């Protein structure tokens, strides 16, 4: 599977990736790579193809052309569950949860896979039978201040709490690479701050790609930033470089955002 | 050689006639399912009601043509009332609830028809101008079937025109692909649904009347035809009258010709066709959209 040295070192390597819907190029021969442990923010105006990029990386959409490799392994033809099994996890822009299940059961679906219990069809899934799984679930819920809600149906939680679980389901898988699609979308300022603290505390060796509109998070969190514009990479660099890039300011930061952060 | 060719031509014509009946029946079902996402298992009941109402109209007014017009309209009215009174509540309850509701309705209608018209077998008699037979290429062909084929083409054209060339048609087309958009255009989506459902009823009723002289009227005709209509919808694909038309002709021909060529397998054949279509092209042979 080793193809070449540089590719092998990358957590994510994308080359010449294209995706079109009905003749419209959403991703246009896009190439980028992310090194292990890196925090990479993906920004760009609406319609730049950010979420589509995530969907193609995770395998929920099939690329028309190009290559994607995870830690040196080509995954372009793999269905999404196989990519997940190679250490890819994600969260969604719109909450995408098991609404009628309890918080604990939501989390357990992630953890039982991580612990390789997902083929067990004869043992009652209980703390007694799967102590490690439940201990881990407990500590997750504890640290996310959700312990009291563990038996509550997700549908009955507040939006902010649901949003936290959305992220938790991604990170609980202990992924090597995590894609976060606007983790703070729709959150209040306080909730955003709360979320930011979680994000900062994620394991350092976890590679993270984050789509975000909140520039405070982007500039506070990211090691590097990729700016997408109509399916192409417009610019890539450290936060400082991006802040200084005139093209970026023109297409993206040019409006109200630039006034605040420039 | 010439003879066997003309026989084949006639079988094809038979298949077309049957396909037209299926088209009228399935067009409404496909429209309702494609637009409203409602699997209407009472659709066969509309077909049956059309036939029986036509029987009464034809008896009292002694006029087949009036029955052909009045009965479908009455069925449309019944389906309108049903949509407003009952179906509306099931819109957001998922398919299972709709299955239960419409299956319950089908049971009630089945019994109601038997109550009102009895369990005896009836048939509709077409007027002399379209009964009897024609001689084409030395083969005898029943005139009424030719009429059904023509009727099918006319209705298909009208529906196509309605869908492609009128504002309401455009709304319905939009509804198939994107419900939210229709709502966003400031159109009362409920009104659209009601009208679609009523139109589906009218078409099923028309199909019942048209089928009366060929297939007869009997208890149980509702459930029998329902399955055929579902198959046509699947094989043709959702989304447009053209797709349903294609599906209906394929199934009409396959069923008719299959019964000649492989009579033992005829129970098997159309389901096998449906299975193959579902596996190879799930959105239907002529459909644009996956449900």
């Amino acid at each position: 599977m080793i193809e070449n040295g540089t590719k092998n070192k990358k957590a994510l390597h994308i080359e010449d990736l294209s995706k079109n819907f009905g003749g419209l190029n959403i991703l246009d021969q896009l190439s980028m790579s992310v090194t292990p442990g890196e925090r990479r923010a993906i920004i760009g105006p609406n319609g730049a193809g950010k979420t589509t990029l995530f969907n193609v990386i995770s395998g929920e959409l099939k690329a028309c052309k190009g290559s994607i490799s995870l830690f040196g392994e080509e995954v372009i033809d793999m269905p999404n569950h196989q990519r997940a099994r190679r250490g890819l996890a994600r969260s969604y822009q719109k909450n995408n949860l098991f609404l009628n299940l309890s918080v604990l059961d939501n989390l357990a679906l992630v953890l039982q896979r991580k612990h390789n219990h997902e083929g067990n069809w004869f043992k009652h899934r209980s703390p007694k039978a799967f102590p490690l799984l439940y201990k881990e679930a407990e500590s997750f819920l504890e640290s996310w201040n959700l312990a009291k809600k563990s038996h509550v149906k997700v549908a009955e939680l507040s939006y902010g709490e649901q949003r936290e679980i959305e992220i938790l389901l991604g990170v609980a898988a202990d992924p090597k690479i995590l894609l976060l699609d606007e983790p703070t979308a729709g959150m209040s300022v306080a909730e955003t701050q709360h979320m930011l603290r979680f994000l900062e505390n994620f394991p350092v060796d976890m590679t993270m790609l984050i789509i975000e509109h909140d520039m405070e998070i982007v500039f506070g969190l990211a090691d590097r930033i990729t700016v997408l514009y109509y399916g192409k990479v417009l610019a890539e660099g450290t936060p400082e470089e991006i802040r200084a890039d005139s093209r970026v300011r023109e297409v993206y930061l040019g409006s109200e955002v630039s006034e605040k952060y420039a | 050689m010439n003879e066997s060719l003309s026989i084949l031509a006639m079988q094809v014509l038979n298949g077309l006639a049957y396909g037209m009946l299926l088209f009228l029946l399935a067009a409404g079902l496909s429209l309702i399912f494609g637009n409203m996402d409602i699997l209407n298992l009472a659709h066969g009941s509309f077909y049956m009601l059309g036939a029986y109402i036509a029987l009464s109209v034809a008896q009292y007014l002694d006029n087949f043509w009036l029955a052909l017009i009045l009965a479908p309209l009455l069925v449309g009215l019944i389906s309108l009332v049903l949509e407003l009174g009952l179906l509306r509540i099931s819109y957001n309850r998922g398919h299972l609830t709709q299955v239960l509701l419409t299956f319950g309705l089908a049971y009630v209608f089945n019994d109601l028809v038997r109550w009102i018209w009895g369990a005896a077998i009836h048939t509709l008699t077409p007027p002399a101008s379209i009964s009897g037979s024609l001689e084409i290429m030395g083969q005898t062909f029943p005139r009424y079937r030719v009429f059904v084929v023509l009727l099918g083409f006319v209705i298909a054209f009208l529906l196509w025109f309605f869908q492609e060339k009128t504002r309401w048609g455009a709304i319905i087309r939009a509804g198939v692909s994107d419900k939210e958009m229709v709502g966003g255009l400031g159109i009362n989506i409920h009104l659209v649904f009601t009208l679609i459902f009523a139109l589906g009823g009218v078409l099923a009723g028309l199909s019942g009347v048209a089928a009366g002289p060929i297939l007869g009227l009997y208890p149980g005709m509702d459930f029998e035809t329902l399955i055929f209509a579902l198959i046509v919808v699947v094989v043709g694909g959702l989304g447009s009258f053209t797709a349903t038309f294609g599906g209906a002709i394929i199934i009409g021909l396959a069923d008719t010709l299959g019964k000649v060529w492989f009579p033992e397998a005829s129970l098997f054949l159309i389901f096998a066709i449906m299975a193959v279509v579902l596996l190879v092209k799930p959105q239907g042979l002529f459909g644009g959209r996956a449900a």
Partner: protein
Amino acid sequence: MMIKLKSFKIGKILLVIAILGLIILPLVGCGNGGSTNSSSGDNKSGSNATVGSTEPFKVGLIIPKSNVYATLGENLSNGMTMYFDEIGWKAGGREIQLLQEDEENDAQAALRKAKKLVESDKSDVLVGVVNSSIALAIRDYVDQNKVPFLVAHAGAVGLTRAKKSDYVYRISFTNEQVNFPNGKWTYENLGKKVFVIAPDYAAGKEQINGFKKGFTSAGGTIVGEAWPPLGTNDYGSYLQQITKAKPDAVYAFFAGTDAVRFVQQYSEFGLKKKIPLNGSGWLNAEDVRPAQGGAVEGVKGSLYWQLALDTPENKNFVENYKKKFGKEPSGEAVEGYDAARVIAEGLETLKGDSSDKLKVAQAWGDIKFVSPRGPIEFDKENHMIIQNIYLAETQKIDGKLQNKIIATFKNVKDPI
């Protein structure tokens, strides 16, 4: 995980028990209580009918009362009611009760009903059944549980051949019996080459088989066969096969909607003018002729009874039936009428003693009388009725389409 276990809360379980109780209680009730839908007054509960008992004699009738075959069931039931009315619902000193259940065109439901009639309602005998597969299912049950069963319509040959039982008698017909004599007649009167067509299911095969036995042993040749599926919409393609085979005549078995469609299309496709259509009598029976319209004119069919049968017994029967029910009787009405008579006369010969079920059944076997359909008796060998078969042609008489009897085959046995 504790949350799972809590789904079995005590309150819920008690509720489930309560619901189960509500479901079961009425069952227990009807198990001990005897019939709940008896037709007349004196209804003491008690389970074992003693010798020379004054207990009502209960006749359990299983017929289709819903869906496709409801009319057949209704006519059968009418026939039985009519006979019992005539004798004042009494025979052998016992009151007769008729308990009716819906066959539902579903063997399982029908078997359930049979069990209910026997086990819960304590029926002394079972009668009826239109569908052959249902009759075969009930046959095993009555054979095991020793309940006399008088088959009043179903025609599967096996019931009185391979699967004959000491407890099963048949007052109706077999699928072969009604066609067998017509075979020879067809050979002699219509031609040596015949095309046969019938629906592709057991009864269809048996009907045609009966014809073939008579026809080929007389010297005829079958020049073609077609087996359209049951409920075929469009016979056009089969009719073309027939045209191509150029037979002297067509012999068909179709009933109900199939008969309407086939006969109509036979005429529509212009075959009626060229090739005579003969068949079993359901092809032009009373129940399908109104729907068939003019297409049925000239069609011939053989059956165990015809409305036009000119005997005092039949005229009397038809007249009384019309008076009572306001419509003309059908073959099923005659079956019901005769079945009721067999049951009543059987009880009469036993002087009301129905304690020995085998004797009840055997008593049927000795009964002989002249029915509206002519003289009938049972074949001792297989418990199958021996009867006349009438060949009738539909003709326009006084501007009205009617069946005219053109040949009578006397005392026909089941052609084993």
